[in-house]
């Protein structure tokens, strides 16, 4: 090729530079500043800090009662991860095994679309469903008469769990879907052929082979779940006090402490780090996960000539696993013990039975089909089939009912934003469209439109910059060869896996420090507003754009570009004539993703804006938190309509783009 390695070096590095600078300044440095603040002592008011250096903030977190909040958050995050997995895996299998491409795309679309509607709105909808006079209680009590007094569903830990599962289920489904899609179902047949029933074929073959997707799903659910503060706040009542709420209070309460809040965020970061380490160990290996975890233990024992009966080892494995899950959900040692005993009994029973069967086994060439085990395996298969058939029905109902309820209740004549159905009415839409907000004008249509405008400005500006930077860094990473590439890679992925709250707080601390500095030097303090928020959005959107564009680039044959250069085009023209047109669908998809994420973001905006910028999500938060106007359902419905339209248009555009 006519590109010398030396030239390609510098070209690659230069394209990375803008993103690297951006991410170092607005992502890495803030994290380090936050780390620094976490080691300082609180001053006269929450945002003051100074010497002496201390580890007291960390000690506080690891002493009662904060440590139990931390542990509870880990527990709830783990629970939601497990539930997401149990629901999400079969759903991903269901979707990826649809033969008809259209059906498959539609099934996937049904999972993603709710995710495109505002997070706050969807969570708020659960308030309507779970309330003491909410939809469920209304049906059970007044329609069906099954209960005398309303069930306490909202303001419980269960509601938090439900909200988290609801919010993060797509994060579990999508990576698993990607893995299962690539999985060759021939492998299952091969396993069957070698005598593995459905249970073994799944756990020994399919599961390990799809483990990278599963682990990615676990991480993508666990990390945001542990840093969540919106869902617990809206659904959990007193039982919704998680680390995220704790951190928020340290930054927003009169007696709070930025150093301690920073320390809590650092603890969150450490947990994220541990998760990533686990991911690295289990899923980064190209030759699939080191699924043979038990195999490795076996080998280790073998090398030392330690023989453990397989019955014992499987009992240990299953008792630990089942015991852990049961304890996680019940926090009750008696039940955990019972579960462990049941597991042991089942395993021993199976073993005894199998021994007896083996004794009857005759010569190897003639064969006996054991009717009992055939029946058992057929039952197993039937259960699996039922599960697989029921799961999508349940999942889609689960994903869509809050949206359905919101739309339905936007036509409820009742003045109360949730609860009882009091007849059909379009009065709330009329109110919105006529700009009148009813008697309690804690919002007005104009105010809402201003919020929309703010969101759009931030979204458009942020998306343009993030898309340009993200595309450049993708090109550099996919096509360039230079030193430090792995560092750029790492830097690029961190903003995705870091909890929103950590990023928001680190930027809050960062801006405060920088503004203090500017004030000290120039004597006047800048008033940031929209710019702060846009900067933060760009910082996380560069990474998302890069992921999408890189995916497209890896699929793209570099021979095209080489051919163009071979035909005499210089690099500039090669890019615009060849790479860019081919890459365009990826760039558009990346930009749309960035735009949606920007519109949807609440947590980072909330912290970074310092109360000075009202985006649409901040506006909705205000409505939900400070007095819900009856128009909220109608507003939410309009938002759903808008985002759905946006998605539909964009997917149409993408289809055309990839065709053309």
């Amino acid at each position, binding site marked *: 090729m006519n590109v010398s390695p030396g030239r390609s070096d510098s070209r690659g590095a230069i394209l990375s530079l803008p993103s690297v600078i951006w991410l170092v300044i607005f992502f890495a440095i803030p994290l380090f500043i936050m780390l620094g603040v976490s080691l300082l002592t609180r001053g006269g008011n929450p945002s003051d800090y100074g010497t002496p250096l201390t580890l007291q903030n960390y000690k506080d977190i690891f002493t009662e009662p904060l440590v139990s909040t931390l542990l509870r958050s880990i527990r709830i995050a783990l629970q939601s991860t497990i539930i997401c997995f149990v629901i999400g895996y079969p759903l991903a299998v269901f979707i990826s095994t649809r033969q*008809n491409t259209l059906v498959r795309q539609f099934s996937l679309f049904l999972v993603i679309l709710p995710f495109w509607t505002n997070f706050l709105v969807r969570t708020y909808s659960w308030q309507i469903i779970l309330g003491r006079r909410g939809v469920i209680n209304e049906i059970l009590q007044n329609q069906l008469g099954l209960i005398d007094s309303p069930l306490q569903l909202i303001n419980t830990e269960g509601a938090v769990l439900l909200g988290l599962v609801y919010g993060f289920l797509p994060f579990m489904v999508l990576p698993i879907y990607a893995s299962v899609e690539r999985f*060759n179902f*021939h*492998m299952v*047949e*091969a*396993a*069957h*052929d*070698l*005598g*593995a*029933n459905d249970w*073994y*074929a799944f756990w*020994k*073959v399919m599961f*390990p*082979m799809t483990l990278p997707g599963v682990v990615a799903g676990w991480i993508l659910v666990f990390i945001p779940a542990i840093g969540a503060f919106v869902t617990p706040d809206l659904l959990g009542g007193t039982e919704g006090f998680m680390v995220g709420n704790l951190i928020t209070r340290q930054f927003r309460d009169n007696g709070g402490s930025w150093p301690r809040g920073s320390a809590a965020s650092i603890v969150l970061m450490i947990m994220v780090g541990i998760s990533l380490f686990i991911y690295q160990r289990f899923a980064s290996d190209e*030759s*699939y*996960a080191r*699924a*043979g975890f038990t*195999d490795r233990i*076996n080998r280790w024992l073998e090398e030392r000539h330690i023989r453990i009966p*397989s019955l014992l080892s499987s009992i240990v494995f299953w008792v630990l696993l089942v015991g852990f899950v049961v304890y996680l959900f019940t926090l009750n040692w008696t039940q955990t013990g019972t579960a462990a005993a049941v597991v042991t009994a089942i395993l021993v029973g199976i073993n005894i039975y*199998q021994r007896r069967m*083996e004794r009857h086994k005759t010569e*190897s*060439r*003639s*064969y006996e*089909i*054991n009717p009992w*085990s*055939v029946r058992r*395996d*057929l039952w197993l*298969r039937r259960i699996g089939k039922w599960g697989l058939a029921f799961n999508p029905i349940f999942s889609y109902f689960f994903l869509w009912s809050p949206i359905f309820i919101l739309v339905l209740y936007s036509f409820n004549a009742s003045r109360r934003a949730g609860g009882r159905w009091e007849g059909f009415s379009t009065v709330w839409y009329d109110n919105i469209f006529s700009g009148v907000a009813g008697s309690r004008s804690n919002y007005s249509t104009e105010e809402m439109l201003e919020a929309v405008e703010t969101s759009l400005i931030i979204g458009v500006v942020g998306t343009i910059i993030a898309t340009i930077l993200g595309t450049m860094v993708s090109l550099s990473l996919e096509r360039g060869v230079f030193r430090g590439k792995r560092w750029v890679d790492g830097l690029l992925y961190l903003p995705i896996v870091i909890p929103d709250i950590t990023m928001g707080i680190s930027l809050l601390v960062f801006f405060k420090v920088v503004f203090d500095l500017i004030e000290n030097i120039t004597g006047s303090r800048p008033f940031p507003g929209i710019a702060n928020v846009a900067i933060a959005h760009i910082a996380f959107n560069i990474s998302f754009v890069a992921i999408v564009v890189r995916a497209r680039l890896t699929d793209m044959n570099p021979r095209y570009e080489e051919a163009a250069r071979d035909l005499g085009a210089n690099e500039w023209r090669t890019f615009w004539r060849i790479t860019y047109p081919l890459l365009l669908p990826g760039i558009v998809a990346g930009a749309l993703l960035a735009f949606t994420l920007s519109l949807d973001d609440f947590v980072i905006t909330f912290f970074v804006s310092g109360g000075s910028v009202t985006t649409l999500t901040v506006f909705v938060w205000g409505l939900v938190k400070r007095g819900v106007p009856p128009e909220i359902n109608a507003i939410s419905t309009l938002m759903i309509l808008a985002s759905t339209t946006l998605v539909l248009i964009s997917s149409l555009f993408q289809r055309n783009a990839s065709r053309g």
Partner: protein
Amino acid sequence: MPGIDVELKSVTKEFSTRRGETTVKAVDNVSLQIMDGEFFALLGPSGCGKTTTLRMIAGFENTSSGEILIRGKPVQDVPPFHRPVNTVFQDYALFPHMTALQNVMFGLEMERVPRQEARDRAVKALELVQLSAAVNRKPAAMSGGQQQRVALARALVKNPTVLLLDEPLGALDLKLRKAMQYELKEMQKRLGITFIYVTHDQEEALTMADRIAVMDHGKVLQVGTPEEIYEKPHTRFVADFIGETNFITGTLKEKSGTQGQIELPDGLCVSAILDDPAMSLGQKVTMAIRPEKISLIPKTGTIKRGDHQEVSAEQALADLTNQPNMVVIPGVLWNSIYIGTDMRYIAEIGETKQEIVVRIQNFGGRFDQRYEPGQSIYVYWVTENARVLLD
């Protein structure tokens, strides 16, 4: 007398196409009996239903109708993991997250063979396929041939009653394929395991199988030994699919026993063997003659016959026409192709200019006789070599 290992009784498999509007009969009313220890080949063009047949025996597909018996027991309700058959998949389907040894041990683990014993047996199976060196490698780090051997060892270590092989050598290059054909055949003889071997390569089937079933469009057209299939194909399709064949259509004029007189479109009458003596007179029939069973002489000039012996073309023609049961038809060569072992000539014969392929072995040296395109010739064959088939 060996027993029947696998029996298919009128097995049919229908697939419904999209939206269930129409159905495709992938396997159509197939009945087969496969003997114990037999090397049985399923041969047919791609899409004819071979794989589907195999998958029904393995248990991956249910039959739409009909019955499958393994060692006399119906296996309708037996899932694949309880059937005493194992498969070597076309794409090998090796588990990518396991080493060769783990792949081979997998089936034994499922049988709950003790770990140490399983290991020993797996190592032995890998030795059998000459793969002792690669036991701890994962499939991604193995060549196609090695993967193929692992797949074989993985199935064989289970000691199956029947081993199903779905085009196991399809992905290998020619030389390796030939070598493996030989090895497989040897192994099968030694182990005495029944093989059901799916292939679309007729040569492979002919060289390896004890018996062959030729399939087309889901139907079994003919079952027999390689020789029967080659020498006495019952249908035009079989004759065409196995080896190369010239087809000449005509009408059955006269018959006596298996002997028949066929009138060709240009009025010429030739005699041939009737595949089915029950054919009725006046019926449209096809006559099939293998190219290597046809020979030719020039119309003019001389012919080499043995050492330094030459006869004139007229003399040679007279010798031929004097022989009984000899068909001689004039024609013109229009193409000759050198293919190493043979010379392949294409001639147009008779007034209808029927195209016919003739193969003459490349004797070389003094027996060598070459003909040029455009040359007038006579083609001739012995009547027994021409078989009359139904269309």
